[in-house]
């Protein structure tokens, strides 16, 4: 009984954990690269809050950064052993959410609709389903979309400041759709749920902006475009 303890177990485990820590170190290097690219894209997109005419240029610049992220994601996916995505995923969930936000923002600014998960995955060079390998987790996608909602509420107020009274109406309509979409989800008491709870404040903020411009007759009453009309127009023009 005195020989019960097998110290080999500990040395084996040490080897196992050393291997894991090495992989984690490599992941951190790649994630930092992605973080840098995402940061640049974020900065480029900030211009939309101060100059509406530069939106197209900002979107193009951001798209370039996003496209380079796809390459790094590919390298990252090669580090991860098959079927161990969730063992290491805490390293990149945050930055992936950030990129979903950036992509969703760019797509909304360019085309006026909600980017689909498949499209985001394609732009980042990721798979949609976990069975196919390194994929875009659905919760990361949804978290990114919620981040976009907050940014849009900021964008709505700023576009009014810059004299664009139609844009908040589009955003308001878009957010209403988004809100009804999120209401379909049965969320557990987790991070996504908490982030979703903040969505109503973003919606409220935009509704206040719409109310303000409507009551003062600032919006153009004759054309009265719906979000879908402008969305369709923007799609054709984009």
């Amino acid at each position, binding site marked *: 009984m005195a020989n019960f*303890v097998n110290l080999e*177990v500990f040395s084996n485990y*040490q080897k196992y*954990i050393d291997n894991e820590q090495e992989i984690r170190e490599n992941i951190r290097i790649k994630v930092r690269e992605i973080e840098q690219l995402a940061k640049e894209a974020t900065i480029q997109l900030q211009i939309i809050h101060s100059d509406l005419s530069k939106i197209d240029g900002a979107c193009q610049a951001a798209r370039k950064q996003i496209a380079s992220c796809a390459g790094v994601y590919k390298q990252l996916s090669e580090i991860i052993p098959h079927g161990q995505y*969730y063992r290491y995923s805490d390293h990149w969930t945050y930055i992936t959410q950030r990129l979903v936000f950036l992509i969703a923002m760019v797509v909304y600014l360019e085309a006026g609709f909600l980017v689909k998960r498949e499209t985001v995955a394609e732009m980042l060079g990721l798979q949609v389903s976990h069975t196919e390998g390194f994929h875009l987790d659905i919760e990361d996608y949804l978290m990114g979309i919620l981040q976009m909602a907050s940014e849009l509420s900021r964008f709505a107020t700023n576009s009014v400041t810059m004299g664009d009274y139609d844009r908040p109406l589009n955003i308001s309509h878009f957010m209403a759709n988004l809100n009804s*979409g999120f209401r379909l989800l049965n969320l557990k008491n987790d991070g996504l749920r908490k982030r979703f709870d903040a969505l109503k404040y973003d919606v409220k903020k935009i509704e206040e902006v719409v109310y303000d411009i409507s009551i003062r007759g600032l919006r153009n009453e004759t054309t009265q475009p719906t979000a879908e009309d402008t969305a369709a127009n923007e799609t054709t023009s984009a």
Partner: protein
Amino acid sequence: MSQNSRFRHNNRRNQQKHKTGQDSNFSEELNPVVKVFQEYALELDDKHDRYERIVKLSRDITIESKRIIFLLHTIDGRKNNRSKVLEEAEKRLTKVIEVNFKSIALELNGQDPYQYRCAYSPGLQEFIEAYSFMEYYKSGADEKPGTMSDWMFLQQKMQYERDDKLNTITDESQKTIESPNQLDIETDVKTVPQKFEFFVDPTEYILGIADLTGELMRRCINSLGSGETDVCLETCKVLQQLYSGYISLNVQRCRELSRKIYTMRQSVLKAENVCYNVKVRGGEAAKWGAVFENKMNDDLDEGFY
């Protein structure tokens, strides 16, 4: 006029987007955003439901493992019940592997086991604790020098074959084509019968063994009560070895492990204190224990059932 054109436009859009939609008559459901979110909802529900099912299964394992541990504590040198209790414990542990872990393995089949780690980790750790505790007694029972087994051993025990009829029938047609690959158990999931396993994470194993020290400490103290002073000294030695094994590990970012090592240190100190007492006034304790022998036994049993 503008109103009319808008409505026409809307209708056309909706028809294009939702030709495939099922009985969605409300404008709310014709919305493309809502449409994709319905899919997301299904996916999230599936994940959450699976998670909850695994939590339930894990809880069953925890309960049974705790009971087995209590059962093992009833082993008493004076009762000569070691082999009988060990036999029952081993039987029940095997049953847990064959029934409970198989159910979890079924749920995890084709999934990423790390995604559901939090759901099954309490049960797995408790089971490892019970299993290693059983092995501890066993190593003393047999004359051969038995040691604790590692995670590879448990991993080998948790290999399963799918046995439901439906699957074997549908796979029957592929049997001839697939048979050359049948040796390759790990990668080929289509072989007949379908093989799958419950993944034993080495980290969970190490955390489970860390819990074992608590049981060993309890055994050490109980043995003092029953006057088996040699058991006290022996468990204390095992505890010290385990503790030095654990502090030799260099693991970053695992708060759970450092917490357990802290608790382990408390257990080691308690056991060492017991041994000190045995040494200093060992004779007195044994005599005292012999006087109340029968009464002590009753108390012991009551605590564990």
